[in-house]
């Protein structure tokens, strides 16, 4: 258990809060004090911020900044092309305006920092950033500054900006949110004012109020209730109508029934001169339901907005082949400028930019975002490729057939819709309960009516109405959605995005957590520590061959080899028939000879001899060979994520089984597992074997959460009950997963588990309360003791309790930042970076002049 300790005690990077590696020499001077930094990226960003006098960001932030990503290869100049800008830039009085999505926003101070920084650029006329949606509206003078300069300025201070192209989806979302708020307001104001008219009538039961005044009050209530029923409650009425047409009973049916009956009876009563008036109860009921719907919608929109970068699954740029088939040189061009007949290279892990036909290469594509079919589709030469499908295996060359805004826009819409609109199964279960509930209520109401007709006919109608009003399943229908909405919102604030509704429920039931190694437990940034040419080739020759084979690959090793080759000025030849074998390596023909790079088994199948003996200790070996022998041995190491040990220890303490399944060499994987204290570990597994292992676990009744990253994990992620992807990983695996840990911090996983556990607790409490309320209230209604004001109070109180109970999830932050564990004495050691950031806030609030404590031992309040 002590192994978790060193991690938390390492000094934290002043910029991003991650531990500073031992011996790091990165420092930045902020407000006159030297601060240690974890990497060159953070250092550069901190220096840029300090250089502009914006250091008050560090004083006012409430969360650490996102970890700096590697420099991206996106060519920003692309965004200055008119045909690219056409999509998202508007002309306003000679100035240009665009909406940008900002990535890396962690707290309100980030908004301020970005606004100040951009407003300081010459030529930028206006910047306005929405905190909720992380969108910036920027207006600039094209004569003074270019869009690419603005985007570059954003990345200089450690954020990323890219244009929001789905402007129609954006408008739809804004419309939805405004309409919902307006409905809520109409209901709220109607409720308050109707209550003002109702309370005097309750107090003046003795007849001290004249009939005229009473009638006036009723008419006024009616006038205000009409918009509440026919505008605010319209979604429920329409939903119930749809349900009835489909001959089923959903949750909307009892709601509509209750509202409808109470409204009709209340309208009739004053004219007939008998009976009760329920206008206040109806208005309050509608208001509470809309509150829950509004909360739910906001949480959904927020989650969708933070995943908006998945839109990049549809690339803005494409690799166009200049004069295929003569050469394979590519130009980076905007995807919109592609024309039918162009040849395009699609690398593994990238999305297909336009509809077309495969002309070279054999690969598999994933069309799950478009068709919902999660199995990869094998594509051979001559088969069609759909824009938006993701290339999974090897580089493919495509002849463009159809381009067009229409297809792309629809893909984006489907992508965001899927993330946003899926109904959680938990809610559907409540709906199924509702069907029985409605049937029960109708039966009880009918029985009540029969009973009263036979005893006291004049009261039969009003007692039946009271039964229907009291049993209106307000609390029941609020119980689950409010709790889920609040917890999705809470998670999103902590950097965990739930893309599918069932994530929270599944999370609370997980028994086994399966980790992939590359990029999940480790940084995923491999460094090449040795390159040994074999069999008489020179270092340069071997490196060139390795770089050539890895050209089209997205694997972390590929970029390292490319970088090494570039640093040594080696020219890589162009291979043909390149094929990626998932989990093994890459092969391709160079000058007619088949070469392979990958694990020993894969390469020795080609060379025909076993790999020369080498001691790699815990490093990852990669071999290069061709048909006649071995060419080089490459050694890579990958360091553990700083919080990996802590997270694993906490999960084990909470009683979860931890399993590591990796495609890397068993020796390496075992070495890492040993450092983490994980016994159940398997290395050298191809994706199919991982998939089989997970399925075997599930057959034994395990609920498996798979934490993965990278293209080769996609099938396993799909098999697990709950899939969790790292926000820094491949876009494909994020699009397929249920939870995304933004900023690539593993520690967020613990918070997600804790929030999920508390959410399910709250859902159970809420359902229990709602059922209890109905069970208690029903006998009184049947017996005829429920007056309208009693019905109003009962309904209001039960709904309010349910909603407030759900809201506890968002507020009570003192408890549950780690997992509930058997030994509570260790909670101190498992504090999250978030909490430490808050403590830093507190400490600074108390003593603003002491500057910034630079490591975590000082961060804790004294």
């Amino acid at each position, binding site marked *: 258990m002590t192994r978790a300790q060193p991690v938390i005690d390492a000094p934290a990077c002043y910029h991003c809060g991650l531990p500073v590696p031992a011996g790091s020499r990165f420092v930045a001077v902020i407000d006159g004090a030297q601060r240690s930094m974890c990497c060159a990226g953070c250092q550069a960003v901190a220096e840029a911020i300090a*250089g*502009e*006098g*914006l*250091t*008050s960001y560090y004083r*006012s932030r409430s969360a650490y900044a996102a970890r700096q990503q590697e420099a991206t290869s996106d060519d920003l100049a692309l965004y200055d092309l008119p045909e690219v800008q056409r999509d998202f830039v508007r002309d306003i009085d000679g100035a240009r305006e665009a909406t940008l999505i900002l990535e890396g926003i962690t*707290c*309100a*101070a980030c*908004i*301020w920092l970005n606004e*100040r920084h951009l407003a*300081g650029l010459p030529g930028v006329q206006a910047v306005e*950033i*929405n*905190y*909720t*949606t992380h969108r910036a509206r920027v207006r600039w003078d094209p004569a003074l500054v270019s869009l690419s300069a603005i985007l570059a300025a954003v990345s200089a201070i450690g954020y990323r900006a890219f244009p929001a192209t789905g402007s129609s989806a954006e408008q739809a979302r*804004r419309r939805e*949110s*405004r309409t919902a*708020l*307006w409905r809520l*307001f*109409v209901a709220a*104001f*109607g409720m308050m*004012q109707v209550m*003002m*008219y109702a309370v005097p009538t309750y107090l003046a039961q003795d007849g001290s109020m*004249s009939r*005229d*005044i009473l009638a*006036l*009050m009723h008419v*006024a209530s009616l*006038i*205000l209730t009409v918009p509440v029923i026919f505008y605010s409650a319209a979604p429920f009425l329409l939903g119930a109508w749809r349900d009835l047409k489909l001959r089923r009973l959903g949750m909307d049916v009892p709601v509509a029934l209750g509202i409808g009956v109470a409204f009709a009876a209340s309208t009739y009563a004053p004219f007939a001169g008998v009976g009760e008036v329920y206008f206040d109860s109806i208005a309050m009921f509608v208001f509470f339901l809309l509150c829950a719907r509004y909360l739910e919608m906001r949480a959904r929109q927020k989650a969708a907005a933070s995943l908006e970068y998945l839109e990049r699954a549809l690339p803005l740029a494409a690799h166009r082949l200049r004069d295929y088939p003569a050469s394979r040189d590519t130009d980076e061009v905007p995807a919109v400028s592609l024309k039918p007949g162009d040849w395009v290279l699609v690398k593994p892990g990238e999305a297909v930019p336009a509809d077309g036909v495969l002309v070279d290469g054999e690969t598999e594509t994933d069309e799950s975002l478009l068709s919902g079919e999660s199995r990869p589709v094998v594509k051979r030469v001559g088969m069609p490729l759909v824009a938006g499908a993701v290339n999974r295996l090897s580089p493919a060359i495509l002849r463009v057939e159809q381009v067009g805004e229409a297809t792309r826009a629809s893909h984006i819409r489907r992508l965001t819709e899927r993330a946003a609109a899926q109904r959680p199964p938990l809610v559907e279960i409540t709906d199924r309960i509702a069907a029985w509930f409605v049937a029960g209520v109708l039966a009880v109401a009918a029985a009540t009516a029969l009973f009263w007709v036979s005893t006291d006919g004049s009261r039969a109608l009003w007692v039946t109405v009271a039964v229907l009003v009291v049993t209106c399943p307000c609390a029941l229908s609020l119980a689950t959605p409010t709790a889920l909405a609040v917890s999705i919102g809470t998670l999103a604030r902590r950097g965990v995005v739930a893309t599918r509704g069932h994530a929270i429920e599944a999370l609370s039931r997980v028994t086994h957590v399966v980790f992939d190694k590359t990029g999940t437990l480790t940084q995923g940034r491999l460094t090449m520590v040795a390159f040994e040419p074999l069999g008489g080739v020179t270092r340069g020759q071997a490196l060139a061959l390795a770089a050539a084979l890895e050209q089209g690959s997205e694997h972390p090793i590929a970029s390292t080899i490319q970088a090494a080759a570039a640093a040594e000025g080696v020219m890589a030849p162009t291979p043909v028939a390149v094929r990626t074998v998932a989990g093994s390596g890459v092969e391709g023909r160079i000058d007619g000879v088949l070469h392979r790079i990958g694990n020993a088994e894969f390469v020795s199948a080609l060379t025909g001899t076993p790999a020369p003996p080498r001691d790699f200790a815990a490093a990852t070996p990669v071999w290069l060979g061709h048909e006649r022998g071995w060419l080089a041995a490459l050694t890579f190491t990958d360091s553990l994520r700083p919080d990996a040990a802590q997270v694993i220890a906490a999960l084990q303490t909470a009683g979860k089984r931890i399993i590591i399944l990796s495609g890397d060499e068993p020796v390496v994987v075992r070495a890492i597992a040993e450092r983490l204290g994980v016994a159940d570990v398997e290395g050298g597994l191809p994706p199919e074997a991982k998939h089989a292992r997970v399925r075997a676990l599930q057959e034994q009744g395990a609920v498996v959460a798979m934490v993965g990253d990278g293209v080769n994990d996609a099938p396993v992620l799909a098999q697990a009950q709950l899939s969790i992807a790292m926000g820094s990983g491949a876009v494909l695996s994020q699009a397929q997963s249920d939870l995304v840990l933004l900023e690539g911090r593993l520690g967020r996983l613990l918070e997600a588990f804790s929030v999920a556990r508390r959410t399910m607790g709250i859902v159970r409490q809420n359902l229990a309360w709602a059922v209890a309320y109905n069970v208690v209230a029903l006998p009184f209604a049947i017996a005829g003791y429920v007056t309208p004001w009693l019905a109003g109070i009962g309904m209001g109180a039960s709904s309010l309790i349910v909603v407030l109970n759900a809201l506890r999830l968002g507020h009570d932050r003192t408890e549950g930042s780690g997992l509930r564990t058997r030994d509570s004495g260790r909670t101190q050691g498992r504090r999250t970076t978030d909490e430490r950031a808050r403590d830093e806030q507190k400490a600074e609030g108390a003593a603003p002049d002491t500057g910034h404590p630079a490591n975590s031992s000082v961060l804790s309040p004294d």
Partner: protein
Amino acid sequence: MDILYLLIPLSLVLVFLIGAVFWWSLQGGQFDDLEGPAHRILQDDDDPSPPPR
């Protein structure tokens, strides 16, 4: 109590007036960002010592 014959219709008119004002502010986008302004007010726009650029 006769004043109620005036006050109740008046309260109705007021409700609709307030509703109209809210509608106007909603359409003007004032409710689009419900969290940002609360934080923004805490940020100091003019840092006391911005170094010359």
